């Protein structure tokens, strides 16, 4: 009876999610609401730190483009990058052009310069690398000169026309500058905040995630796998049998479901160089999500390993 109920619930979730998506022949990827606008975005995005910084290496660039193709084919939309990420922006731009996805990508970029007056020119240089008319989301990277850059981004948001910026945000990573981030969340009107969250890096649960929820700020989660370190440590261990209860077939999916099951999280952006992993990551947005007790179980189990 319990299994039947679970299957019915799972089917209902999948059907409801499918109904919310535009009618394209794409697999279903669960979506989340951006609180400030009501727009829905797929819950699993694609990060590009290190993985897309491949320079002029043709073979590695083609591999990145294959990853992007699998990502879009699987229903993904949000791709995140930064001027800090070397050649990643150019690789993404090449991929978008070759795959003809310049119109449906949710382009999330960052401004990363200590000089507030250089922000606009850096953003323009970034835009030309992506080969897009505009970005959907611009974020102040690691809070660098955030006051000046938020002012620039607000001005871009206010400007009407085809190049109008839709969303603004700020980012941190590795658990750094959380005190400052909390102050910013309390005082500034933002659409997005990006931070690090996973079963072993849970500090944001205490204040930042509830605050983001309270303030109506969408949360993008970076480093769900600690740049692969967490997965590498866990791969030596067998996946617990109870992972199947929440439709997890891998450690990566278990971690992503932990992240996505927090009610404040809008999107998680794992980075990968493997097509198979992109598909696994996207699939983590579907099916049964852990409840509060299962979330604690996941965190305790992974922390103990």
């Amino acid at each position, binding site marked *: 009876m319990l299994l039947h109920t679970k299957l019915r619930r799972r089917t209902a979730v999948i059907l409801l999610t499918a109904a919310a998506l535009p009618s394209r022949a794409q697999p279903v990827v669960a979506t989340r609401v951006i609180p400030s606008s009501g727009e829905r975005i797929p819950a699993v995005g694609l990060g590009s730190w*290190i*993985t897309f*910084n*491949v*320079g*002029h*290496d043709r*073979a*590695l660039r083609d591999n990145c483009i294959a990853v992007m193709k699998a990502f879009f084919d699987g229903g993904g939309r949000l791709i995140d990058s930064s001027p*800090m*990420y*070397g*050649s990643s922006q150019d690789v993404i731009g090449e991929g978008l052009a070759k795959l003809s996805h310049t119109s449906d990508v949710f382009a999330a970029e960052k401004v990363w310069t200590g000089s507030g007056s250089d922000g606009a020119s850096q953003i323009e240089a970034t835009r030309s690398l992506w080969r897009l008319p505009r970005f959907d989301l611009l974020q102040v990277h690691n809070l660098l000169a955030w006051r000046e850059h938020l002012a620039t981004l607000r001005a871009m948001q206010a400007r009407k026309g085809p190049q109008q910026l839709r969303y603004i945000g700020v980012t941190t990573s*590795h*658990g*750094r*500058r959380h*005190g*400052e981030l909390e102050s910013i969340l309390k005082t500034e009107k933002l659409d997005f905040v990006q931070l690090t969250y996973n079963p072993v890096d849970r500090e944001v649960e205490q204040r930042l995630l509830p605050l983001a929820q309270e303030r109506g700020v969408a949360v993008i989660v970076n480093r769900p796998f600690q*740049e692969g370190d967490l997965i590498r440590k866990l791969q030596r261990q067998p996946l617990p049998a109870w992972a199947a209860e929440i439709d997890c077939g891998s450690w990566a999916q278990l971690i992503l479901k932990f992240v996505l099951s927090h009610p404040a999280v809008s999107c998680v952006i794992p980075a990968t*160089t493997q097509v198979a992993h992109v598909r696994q990551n996207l699939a983590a947005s579907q099916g049964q999500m852990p409840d509060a007790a299962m979330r604690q179980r996941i965190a305790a189990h992974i922390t103990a390993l």
Partner: protein
Amino acid sequence: MEESWATLTSYRLQDLLMFSADTFFRLFELMNRRWWPAPVFGALLSVLVLGAAVSRQASLFALLLLALAWASAALFYFRDGFAGIHWLGPWWMGAFLLQALLWLVWATAARPVFTAQARWRAPGLMLVLAAAAWPALTLALQHPPWQAEVVGLAPDATVLLSLGLLLVLQPTRRWAAGLLVVPLAWCVFSGATLSAMAQPHAWVLPLAGSIAGMALLFLRR
């Protein structure tokens, strides 16, 4: 202020690494394939320098070859490869070109010669030999042979050769101070990069740089 200090001290070397080890070592493969047979000439260059140092002849010729090696590493490696994955690539290219010029200036202005009495001759020859044998490292690391790091193309091998040659030629302290800036800076940068990638040979260049720096700047009669 407290949070700024905490933030600063929280960074590990790995946090500053912008690329994967696979991408990094493939730079050498792409360069060797693209510029073939330049790696052969690079290997020959290192053997010629070793021969000059052992036979204590043709010091000017050896320094001209060294200048050529630094200039070619600047163009083939930094401009065409490393600059694509690291924002410091163009700066290192400039530094290596400057160093190539410095070798020429020193060669023509000071006219250093090999002497049997050079105090650090033996360690210097060992470093020159290590540089000539550096391509064999790729086998020890179980990398494809195309990823061999050769003098005149790969900066590590080029810097190692240079440190060895400096020990053998033993410049005055003043010349040494000028000639060591870029090589020692590279030893630190390369050691840190390789360490962040958990490479087993990350210690080699920092150690070679430390020995050369101490010998040429401080442990002098």
